[in-house]
């Protein structure tokens, strides 16, 4: 009780400053929490692998009879640009982009780009007939257990990943591609 007036005053100022800091910190923490909640709510797609990530490796049986490879393993293509396409014979936009892919394939294969078109949930028969219809020559891995589609969390089809020679996802496209767009993306993953 025997504080001087000055002491009291400085005490009060200190108290006031502490209160200000306390309130600012609490409010800031809550603001950050709210922003975090909003952002994670907006971000509805639960993709685990995003642009900039390393594309996860996988291995699947290859079923295109026009291509001699038997087993596809993504990591074998290090040093090459990879277009990783997910498709099905029953999906009209997938069907629409296939001729473009085939058109560009021979040219870009020489330049060091590989097209890998993973087929999901189909019958081998339909895949074969589809390949014959469009005379596809690039490898078509067959994912009948849904393993790779779960790995890449494929939602709508087609979905295409463009992967750089050092294995990084450069672009992810949901929906069909045109010839021009396709070439544009190929430029991005061309090995030097």
């Amino acid at each position, binding site marked *: 009780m025997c504080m001087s007036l000055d002491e009291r005053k400085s005490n009060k100022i200190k108290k006031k400053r502490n209160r200000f800091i306390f309130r600012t910190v609490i*409010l800031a923490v809550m603001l950050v929490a709210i922003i975090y909640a909003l952002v994670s709510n907006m971000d509805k797609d639960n993709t685990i692998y995003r642009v900039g990530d390393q594309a996860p490796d996988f291995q699947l049986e290859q079923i295109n009879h026009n291509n001699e490879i038997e087993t596809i393993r993504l990591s074998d293509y290090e040093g090459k640009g990879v277009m990783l396409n997910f498709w099905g014979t029953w999906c009209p936009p997938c069907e629409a982009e296939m001729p473009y892919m085939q058109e560009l394939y021979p040219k870009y294969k020489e330049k060091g780009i590989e097209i890998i078109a993973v087929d999901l949930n189909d019958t081998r*028969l339909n895949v074969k007939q589809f390949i014959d219809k469009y005379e596809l020559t690039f490898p078509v891995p067959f994912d009948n257990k849904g*393993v790779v589609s779960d790995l890449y969390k494929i939602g709508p089809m087609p979905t295409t990943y463009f992967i750089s020679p050092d294995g990084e996802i450069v672009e992810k496209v949901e929906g069909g591609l045109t010839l021009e767009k396709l070439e544009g993306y190929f430029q991005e993953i061309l090995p030097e």
Partner: protein
Amino acid sequence: MKNIKCDCGHVNPEGTVLCESCGKPIEGNQHIDGNDNKRLLNMRYDGTARRSQTYNKSIVDKIWSFFSSVKVGVWLIVIALVASAVGTIFPQEQYIPIDAVSRDPAVYYQDAYGILGQIYYQLGFHNLFSSWWFLILIALIGVSLVICSLDRFVPLYKALKKQKPQRHHSFLSRQRLFSETEEVTEEEKQKVINSLKAQRYKINEENGHVLAEKGRFSRWGPYVNHIGLIIILLAALLRSTPLFYTNEYLWVREGEQKVIPGTKSEYFIENKGFILDLYDENDDRFKAALEKQGTMVPSNFQTNAIVYKQSEDVVTGAEAQLEKVTEDEIRMNHPLEFEGYKIYQSGYQLNEVNQMTFTIQEIENEDGEPLAEFTIDVTDPKAEYELDNGFKVEINEFFPDFYLDSTGPKTETQFPRNPTFIFKLYPPNSDESETSFVGDVISAAEALGINTEAVELNPMGEVLGQFATNLDATGENEYKISIQDMDFHRVSGLSIRKDHSLPFFGVGALIFMIGVVQGMYWQHRRVWIRPTEKGLMLAAHTNKNWFGIKKEIENSIENTNIKMVDDQQELDE
């Protein structure tokens, strides 16, 4: 900031309504709790200063005092309440019925509810509960919870801690329960104290002034339950990270083995068989209800499942040794549990075709013995089938889920729900083929008025021969291919959840319940006795259940001269 010195000598901080020491109303501050025009004192926080109401300077302080107001809190609750009600006017997007004209929200709301539905959709109310503004609303309630609690906890703590038995006479006389007795003997007073003690009051005596108190801990109830609510909100925040919560869905056919999504290809599940049991129509107990309802009622959905784990670390998709982890029956209300995951029976599909058997006959001799028969595994058809009698069948096109639109035959999905084939049939010793279109059982059945969605309860195979489509494209065919038999397999829909946030929700809910019971089922009761010249003043306060405290006072003054307290409540005016 100035302090206020009370007559009793105690120095109170600014904003104090009732002196912290003696309880005397502090002049000039009575408007804060609305005491100025009331006979009774408002005992909120025992009249101590609440910080938020005293300083209003920087932005931070302004925001702080905004959220510290209970009025704001109640408004937020009311807004959340109204918003929630709006969200139930029409079904939310995830509850659009499966048999709706379209499950596309852009179509559904207008189609089902007209212009109101369209407005509802365009305002985004079909996803109201996950909208950013609803989330912010709930978050603001959280902010209000935190700040209100912080702001009120300290003053209340102080007020209850430094309670003195000696109180100003006006503090006593303006309590709701009050009486003054002119003449009271010391013996009588002691009797009252003893009786209060016997009723488990804690007695605090000082210079003849008495404070009897019990149930103080119930005052902390609101803070405890608010902590519980804050924990629940934090748990909801945690849950929005994939680390704590994943939610996946999987369709798996009988006999099929599939990767369990969301497990990074570590776990696989095999569907050993799907079971759908129905209630027996002749069951005495339910006969009447079943008859009235007119439909079958399922009694059990069940998947017999085995979960495997990849025993070695191989690249995704490569063949690997699988090790059995667990085998269980997945039923409604009985999920399968393994290593942090739970698998729930969430759906089923009974009308997927597994195998189809066809026969070949001469068109001119339709009733005769079939010339050849072949079976196609619809999930993996072959390109051609060599048959007895020299027939050969090629599959020209296969549509697992057939439909026809203006551009021709199509398949809607990859699932064999309406398998349809275009065959090329080579008769014995012939290079010439004829084309047959066979299948589309669904529209044939619908044309006959059969509800194909109820197929599961009345296997379609029974009525096949009668109506299966067989189109002869050229009209020149000699042979007819018809469906002899269809074999359906059952597809089980499973949801896979991992939810590590549950314990947090559990703890939050538990703390909330403890707090709410603590605050609601116990009461903080106080009785003050202030000696006067020859007699005494008796006053009492409780935060609820006045009926109960009156009874206790009645008990304690039994056989004494002390007057029963008057209830000065103003409701009857």
